[in-house]
């Protein structure tokens, strides 16, 4: 598509002040942006920037946590997974081997297995107990991917 050359004109002069309407829309967009960003930051920072406590971190400040709802991360110990009427029971451990016993209400997700890191959401049953009641399990898989071949020993499996 071609356009005919326009008659020579002076460069258009922008308005000396923005119109009330365009300034209003500009402020509206800014306002919505600030509100959306604020809401996102509030949601994201609600339970601190750290998404979970590891088993070691949680046991280190056990008194501070008490029976409050937290997210707890640990490695599911081999041979500890047991199905229950309402869900599952298993142990998770931190880097230095300390264990927490988890009683979960609800079925674990598809990739849940012994030897896999998980994040559980819930609370300790009392301020001194090492038993944790959870209502949600999230599997925290690593950034390592290994091809599945028949006969290969399963990486990370118990």
């Amino acid at each position: 598509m071609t356009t005919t050359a326009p008659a020579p004109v002076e460069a258009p002069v922008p308005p000396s002040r923005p119109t009330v309407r365009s300034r209003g829309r500009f402020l509206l967009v800014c306002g919505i942006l600030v509100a959306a960003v604020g809401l996102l930051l509030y949601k994201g920072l609600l339970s601190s920037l750290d998404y979970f406590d590891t088993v070691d971190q949680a046991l280190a400040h056990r008194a501070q946590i008490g029976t409050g709802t937290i997210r707890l991360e640990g490695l599911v110990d081999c041979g500890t997974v047991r199905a229950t009427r309402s869900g599952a029971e298993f142990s998770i451990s931190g880097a230095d081997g300390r264990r927490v016993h988890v009683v979960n209400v609800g079925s674990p997700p598809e990739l849940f297995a012994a030897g896999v890191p998980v994040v559980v959401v819930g609370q300790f049953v009392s301020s001194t107990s090492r038993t944790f009641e959870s209502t949600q399990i999230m599997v925290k898989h690593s950034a390592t991917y290994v091809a599945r071949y028949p006969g290969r020993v399963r990486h990370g499996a118990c």
Partner: protein
Amino acid sequence: MTAVVRAVDRFLGPVSLALVVLTVWLGLWVTPPDELQGDLVRLIYLHPALAWVALYLAFGLAAVCSALYLWPRTRAERWDLLAASTVEVGVVFLSLTLATGMLWGRPAWGVWWTWDARLTSTALLEILFIGYLAMRRVPADPHTRARRCAVLALLATLDVPIVHFSVQWWNGLHQGATLGSGLTFHIHGSMLWTLLLSFVAFTCVFAWMVRRRYQIAVRDAARELDELAAALTARRAEGVR
């Protein structure tokens, strides 16, 4: 130079399509499943490449163009149009990143979404650049619009390093980098090659989309000027009678 540009314009589309088809074929039928995730892992041939293109190519380029526009010595309309084009394509890629991430997260983690540091900062980035697109629609003279959007793009790009380093700075559900720094790879064989190919394929798709979008933006800007000139001429003709 013009011959190179013409060749790129002619072949970039078909080459991009071929690379994407090759990536999909390799990803779905040739590469093996993962020993832990099984066939779920095949989303790795989409999700990281989409994210990489959005965060570093699209929004990185938008930041550079915005800075060039704001600096008086290099100010030119083409930087504003190019920034707008890359942001538009970048928002598409980031939306696809979030969508593929959710499709992967539900079976792999057990949740569609959660407010960990990486996901939250990525959602924030999406909101900021959708805000950029909204800002472009606010009526204003071209220079005012370009200046506002350039400032917003630079502010929004501050979130990109936060997204990148979030998995290192904070405990989070999202895993770290599979292709680590210093060429430490946590993936091997055909899975690695297909993953690298996906980066090349989506980079080509990005380049093709930005090229097309920029051409449309240039034509739109020229048409606006023509319409304005015609309107002024008509108005002056009324005054003469």
